[in-house]
């Protein structure tokens, strides 16, 4: 029988730690709760959990530092919970090695969905997922990762990427794409080109290699070069 995933919760606000703990247990995860950074880090080394839910403002050792130290030795997914929501805070959090970032007040369903998504990512034998090169599309959670980096896509962007990702190597012309993704509009707009532009910008935001290529005079194709 498969072992239950172990989740380490590091959160100094006991009332928040409590309900996150209860919810994760209700989803049949093993949980360990600690209330400060140093204990959290030593528990991590002792127990080697499958995922860490980490608050940023922690006593003794702050969350960013905990994330950095974990990242030195391990690829375990880290989801940061924080009351800070500025872009700078997010960038700092993600740069410190965290995989995801949830701002309080967060919805518990969203936290659970992200936990599922990150656990699937480290444990690939799960359905509902499309993988091409370093691109991972979680079709149920409608989430996209590239090389572990979570990418926010709009609904249409997701639909378009899904069309490509389900048919890697197949060249689509603009008309086909429009018919599938924008069935309610008749042709004549450049919506496909614009959205391919959006996708490229987001998928290559950190200088990654190009995935969606232009086939001159025909259309677009998703493939690894």
């Amino acid at each position, binding site marked *: 029988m498969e072992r239950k995933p172990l989740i380490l919760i590091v959160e100094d*606000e006991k*009332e*928040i730690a*409590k*309900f*996150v703990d*209860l*919810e994760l247990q*209700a989803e049949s995860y093993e949980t360990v709760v600690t209330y400060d950074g140093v204990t959290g880090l030593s528990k991590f080394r002792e127990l080697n959990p499958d995922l860490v839910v980490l608050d940023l403002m922690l006593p003794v050792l702050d969350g960013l530092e905990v994330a950095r130290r974990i990242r030195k030795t391990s690829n375990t997914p880290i989801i940061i919970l924080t*009351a*800070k*929501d500025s*872009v700078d805070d997010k960038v700092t959090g993600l740069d410190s090695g965290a995989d995801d970032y949830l701002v*309080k*007040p*967060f919805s*518990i369903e969203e936290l659970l969905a992200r936990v599922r998504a990150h656990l699937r990512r480290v444990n690939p034998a799960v359905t509902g997922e499309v993988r091409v090169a370093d691109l991972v599309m979680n079709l149920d959670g409608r989430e996209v990762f590239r090389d572990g980096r979570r990418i926010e896509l*709009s*609904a*249409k962007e997701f639909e378009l990427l899904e069309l490509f990702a389900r048919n890697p190597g197949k060249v689509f012309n603009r008309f086909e794409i*429009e018919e599938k993704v*924008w069935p*309610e*509009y008749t042709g004549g*707009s*450049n*919506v496909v*080109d*614009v*959205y391919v*532009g*959006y996708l490229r*910008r987001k998928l290559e935001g950190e200088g990654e290699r190009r995935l969606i290529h232009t086939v001159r005079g025909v259309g677009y194709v998703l493939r690894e070069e």
Partner: protein
Amino acid sequence: MTLRLRLAIFTSAFIAVILSAVAVSVYLLTERSLDTAVEERALQALTDLSEGAIATGLQRLPGDAYYQIVLVATAPEVPSDVAGIRNGVNYTQPASVRANPTDDRLLALLPDRVLEDLIRGDDLAAHVTLANQERLRVLGTLGTVAFPNQQVALTAVILVGLPTSNVQRTLEQLARDLGLTVVLAFAAFAFGVWWLARQVLSPVQRVTQAASRVSGQDLSRRVPVPATDDELRALAVSINHMLDRLQESFETQRRFTADASHELRTPVTAIVGHAQYLLRRTHPSVEQVDSLGVIQREGERMAKLVHDLLELARADAGFQVQREPMNLLEVLEAVRDDLGPLAVPARITVDCAQPLLEVEGDPARLKQVVLNLVQNALDAGAQHVQMHLERDGRDVRLEVLDDGAGIPSEALPHLFERFYRVDGARSTRGNGSGLGLAIVRWIVQQHGGNVDVRSRVGEGTVFTVVLPARAPSGRG
């Protein structure tokens, strides 16, 4: 009108008055002294003629003088009849000191009763104009003349005329010179004042420019303090002091709002989280579900309020949204898909003729705009909320139309104010924080657009958001 211009105009006008007064005084004084000189000369000549012998008298007349001696035959105390006197008078017109260019007799140029008055003993002082336009100062008196060859002294009326044209010419010349001097002096002065005003005011202008660069977004700038130890330095220093205090209080307020919001988030998260846990994972009774639902909903409302407050704290701190190319239509569709299921039986529809309307924007914040507008419409009791999106020239125009209760016209101007609530239909459900539309306006303005509202009570409301469309060029 600038201070510089006012200063220049004011001082120039002042100086113009002073200069004119000086010039006029100079002119009047000169005129009087010249007149006096002529008068004295004439009087001297008249005295000479009336007291001395004719010959000596004539010799002492100036070269340009006219004279006329009218011998009075009868005794001076009898002159009752002017005609008689005139008839009895022996007019003598000796050779003039200089050739009289006209044939005028001085007496003929004077009124008739002058001779009568003279004979009675009055003195005459008058101006006459000759036929050649030469003006004379004429003095006359009754005297005794002695002719050298006749050894008799005869009573006579003696008239002396001295041309005043020299004086006139001198005065005209003086007026011209004075006028020119005044104009030149005035021009020089006005230019000087203009230049001086610039010199004096340029530090003020520098201080002003520096002060206007200090904005709500950047209170850290300071006004340059001039090295001179003067009023301007004091001004700059006191402006900087004021900015220090302003920055400090801004910082305090901003930190307070931000800290308060952060601090509120944690308990709100715990409240909502626990309520949700009990609702989802345990089996509460119907009453408990109701009660937990209230806790959850109110907690979520508080979370939204905290979010809104923090958003406005950011707005006050001069926060700039991050913009990227995006399709506004998708934001509308996302809002429809998010709120649609919760709004039943009310309908939310999106109406757009094309699949793509690009703007440069912050997707999350523009979604907040649309969410707030649609939620407002639903709160107002709308049964159908229609989002209409179209390209309008260089703009993208979004209209959110509802068939709700409408907003009274007196409330419309205040709608975008913080914590403003419309009395009546819109606030009966009271879900909002009262900050939603203030945030809408801030976000829209951050995107270089504007938001407007039209409404009619009983018919519905239309919110119009206009955003600059993304230029179609520059895309690979």
